[in-house]
């Protein structure tokens, strides 16, 4: 996936933007989907598809703790993703094409 495609995936919706901010501000956060939704002031059903996209991208990971499935930020993958976005943005000119 190119840096541009990653960027489009990251900023595809307001919910995804909220999730990015939440996990970047709290990189050690581990919580259920319900908990994550509550933290950004939304319902589980309204965040589930965006969570799935971020899981697919590899930015978030999921694991089972006891009876609960929890989500957390994969910090190494996050660094890799943001670096790829940064390298893409380096090549884009403000107000014009590459």
């Amino acid at each position, binding site marked *: 996936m190119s840096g541009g495609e990653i960027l489009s995936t990251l*900023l595809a919706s307001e919910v995804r933007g909220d999730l*990015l901010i939440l996990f*970047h501000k709290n990189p050690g956060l581990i919580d259920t989907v319900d908990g994550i939704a509550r933290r950004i002031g939304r319902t589980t059903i309204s965040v589930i598809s965006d969570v799935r996209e971020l899981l697919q991208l590899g930015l978030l990971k999921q694991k089972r703790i006891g009876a609960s499935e929890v989500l957390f930020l994969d910090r190494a993958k996050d660094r890799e993703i943001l670096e790829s976005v940064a390298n893409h*943005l380096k090549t884009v*000119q403000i107000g014009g094409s590459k």
Partner: protein
Amino acid sequence: MMSMATRAREPSSTNPGGNFWPAQKSSGNSNSAPEEAFSSLLTGIVCDALSNALGRYVLDILASKGLLDDSDNPKEFDRELQSLFGNGASVLERIVVKDLYRKLSIPYDSDARFDYEKSLATAKEVCFVESRLK
């Protein structure tokens, strides 16, 4: 309550050095103190939004491209964000407005139609009223 001007100049937790904030536009122009305070507040919030969403390194790159120079000019900023992020620009603008509204205690409705310029105009008005009341 802390004055708006003081609060606006506080560096954010994610931008402790405040290196990306453009120089104050006080010399040689007619900007009033509330306008400058609002401009500083907005620039700080834009820095926070970009840094929290996409990381410090991305903020660095965008700052070096001059994106932050126009952060208090909604039309120009919107145009520049669109050229860099396409549809993602509106997500970043919503993050900025949400944070700005939270700081100014303005209710934010995610479901309402979004207009960055109008949202900033509302925030600016509230900021000015607040400063007049102090």
